[in-house]
């Protein structure tokens, strides 16, 4: 009787602990047992400073995917970002991805703007239109020293180079 009681209570304790862990890992930590269905696209950026793996991809303010990998391209000195797009979200060939910040000092995320082409990208293909992270310091220094670069804007479109 006593022995069974101890085992029962310990069992409940273990179950409780594992349940709490699963909740944190899956719901909050974002670890998924199965990868959410979708497809992966690639994009090259001049700079993605502040962007992290696991970050959000938004379109029109709605979360449509996550950043599944960040690599450095030593040949071109660029950042290669893998974008995991949820199933059912179409991305046109001329869609634009840009690195944005939530608020002034918030998290970096990627914003996807729809393009006009009818052709859609499929798994493994590259998005060519990218806008790099806006560096606050660069903007400020530009403003102060009044030195305008050729493009006239802080954002460079990588595709045109």
């Amino acid at each position, binding site marked *: 009787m006593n022995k069974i009681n101890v*085992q029962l209570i310990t069992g409940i*304790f*273990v179950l409780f*602990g*594992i349940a*709490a*862990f699963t909740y944190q*890992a899956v719901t909050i*930590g*974002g670890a998924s047992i199965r990868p959410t269905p979708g497809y992966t696209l690639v994009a090259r950026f001049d700079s993605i400073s502040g962007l992290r793996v696991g970050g959000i991809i938004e379109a029109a303010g709605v979360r449509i995917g996550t950043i599944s990998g960040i690599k450095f391209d030593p040949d071109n000195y660029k950042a290669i970002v893998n974008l995991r797009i949820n199933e059912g979200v179409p991305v046109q060939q001329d869609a634009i991805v840009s690195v944005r910040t939530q608020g002034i000092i918030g998290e970096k995320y990627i914003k996807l703007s729809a393009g006009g082409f009818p052709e859609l990208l499929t798994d493994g293909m590259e998005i060519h239109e990218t806008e790099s992270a806006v560096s606050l310091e660069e903007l400020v220094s530009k403003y102060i020293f009044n030195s305008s670069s050729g493009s006239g804007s802080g954002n460079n479109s990588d595709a045109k180079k």
Partner: protein
Amino acid sequence: MASIAKHVESLGAYCITAMEQTGRTFNMLLQVLWELLHPPYRFYPIVRQMYFIGARSLTLIIVSGVTIGMVLGLQFYNILQRFGSVELLGAGVALGVIRELGPVMTALMVVGRAGSSITAELGIMRITEQVDALECMAISPDKFLIAPKVVAGLLSVPLLTMVFDFVALFGGYFVGVKMFGVAEGSYWNGMTDAVEWQDVRLGLEKSFVFGVLVTLICCSRGFYMHLTKAGSQGAEGVSSATTDAVVLSSIAVLFSDFLIGALA
């Protein structure tokens, strides 16, 4: 001059004692590992110790977890409100709890509740010759007494930490959302966006280390009591060994928390 030499001498003696104790604790870990790899394997003693270290600490952990969550909710709300970014409340509470406070507070609670009584139990077993009796029955005390405690510590502390984290998030939710009226969605979404799997994993790794560290230090302080100054002092020796064990394992938890945080 002579008195300076004396102080230097006592410092040296202290260092030697500290080294000896560290060595014994490490040796105990090796003994436990050796015993765990060799049959017979018995699971019931581990369950029993998990009941004692884990299940019996559950109430304490839940109460302190909710309280810590509420305190964090309150403090973070006050600070964030000044910058007008209360939507970061969920992220702040969750990161604070999952990365730092959950593992550390749980380990400290276990030290206070279970660690102290482990040391006292083993110390009393030592001075009443129960350990010798085990030895003479050809039963390895490392296997019979220490190993179940260390394994139970290794398993129980992470489980308790997870429970602590879980209830603390709801403590923060209660204060932030129910009392101060932060939007419910921004609390939970902020949490989900800010906390990565790496954060949960870091907390988990910490709690595994703490679990082993705490039980091992408390076990070795009680089990090797006869080799220290406290050994010849009977009941008083048990009490001072217990105090030592609590102080030492608390410091070990805090220091290794820093180390893991710095290395990760």
